[in-house]
């Protein structure tokens, strides 16, 4: 049962990749291929949890467990991340040495969460919000923020907060974009680390179930609500920080903030949540 989903999807991926090699590039509708994957992926969860509303997947474990949900609602009475959103707003508008600020790089007052991640066709790579924040700083003569937490997470929290409700609709239009998507997909379904586990093993097959004292969150909706104030961290942190911790937990090699591996994974995961809304920042255990 555990191996079936992985094997099926990996086989499907291999079949598709073979098909791509033989077909002329202009004839392949990459978006259609991706949409088929999304339908299958989301269909898996609809079947597993028939009583959970699609929109609620953005709340992760709290859509599946009542006691945990109550505690989360209590935190939401006055969420700890409100302090970070305020700090992030100040940082967003703080002038650089050259007089510009992060506000100069992002339209709409910074309410652009819905535009990320996207595949940059010119540079042939996935661009995430955190990457764009630091690229803006570097382009204006400032040092990039260190990864995982602190100011980077606070600015991201502010931009996520004012973008709440924006729909997730990540596009895959080219062979290069599809390539990045497939890399992220392979990461998600591939086994890794000393414990030889995959993201899908815990977050699809064990979603909603206990693994020791933890309830596994469903992969659908994973990237909608970042950055998060994790009670465990006692502070706000980025999606890539969460990836790092998770890889570390299973004895697998962790990657850096904004590494290609994590950007491709974020790309894949966000696409799998197409149709949901961005609802960050969030409080988590």
């Amino acid at each position, binding site marked *: 049962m555990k191996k079936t989903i992985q094997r099926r999807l990996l086989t499907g991926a291999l079949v598709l990749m073979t098909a791509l090699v033989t077909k002329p590039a202009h004839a392949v509708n990459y978006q259609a291929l991706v949409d088929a994957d999304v339908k299958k992926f989301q269909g898996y969860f609809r079947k597993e949890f028939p009583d959970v509303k699609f929109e609620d997947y953005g709340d992760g474990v709290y859509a599946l467990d009542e006691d945990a949900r109550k505690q989360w609602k*209590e935190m939401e009475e006055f969420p700890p991340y409100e302090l970070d959103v305020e700090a992030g707003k100040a940082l967003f508008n703080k002038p650089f040495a050259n007089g510009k600020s992060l506000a100069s790089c992002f339209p709409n007052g910074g309410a652009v969460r819905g535009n990320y991640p996207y595949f940059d066709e010119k540079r042939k790579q996935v661009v995430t919000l955190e990457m764009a924040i630091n690229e803006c700083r570097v382009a204006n003569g400032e040092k990039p923020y260190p990864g995982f937490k602190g100011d980077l997470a606070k600015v991201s929290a502010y931009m996520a907060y004012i973008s709440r409700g924006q729909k997730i609709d990540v596009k895959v239009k080219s062979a290069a974009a599809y390539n990045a998507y497939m890399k992220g997909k392979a990461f998600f379904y591939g086994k890794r680390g000393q414990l030889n586990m995959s993201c899908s093993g815990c977050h699809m097959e064990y979603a909603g179930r206990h693994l020791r004292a933890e309830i596994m969150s469903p992969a659908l909706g994973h990237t909608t609500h970042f950055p998060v104030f994790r*009670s465990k961290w006692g502070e706000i942190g980025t999606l890539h920080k969460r990836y790092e911790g998770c890889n570390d937990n299973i004895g697998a090699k962790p990657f850096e903030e904004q590494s290609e591996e994590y950007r491709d994974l974020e790309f894949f995961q966000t696409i799998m949540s197409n149709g949901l809304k961005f609802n960050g920042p969030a409080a988590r255990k």
Partner: protein
Amino acid sequence: MGISRRNFCKTIAGSAASVAVLAAMPGKLMANWSDKAFAADKLEDAIAAKYGSLPIEESTAIQIKAPEIAENGAFVPVTISTTIPGVTNMSIFTPANFSPMVASVDVMPRMKPEVSLRIRMAKTANLVVIAQAGGKLYRVTREVKVTIGGCGG
């Protein structure tokens, strides 16, 4: 709930002057942080340091709203309330922590006898809430399971 100011003052700071000081000088270090009670490392000692030797009885008129299984011991959301008339103080204790006394809330005349806060619990343990009304103490106990301790572990 509606007790006379004089009786109320007797129970917290011992004089009307103290209450005026509290209200007028909020920026200064205030008197009466129950040092001994917060410093006690045993539940019984903390209760005794806070309330002296007043008689305690169990009560069903105190409510504790807390999770069954706390997601994280560093942030356990708790709401305590009571319907006991004439309550002047409600305090929360837990033997989960090296310092069992967590918080003490004086129920002011215009305040509803209910407070919510987030507390730390180092491990699975009881939450003990004590309410003082007149010369008596009332107690309720409730277990909270903790999966990850809240003391930085």
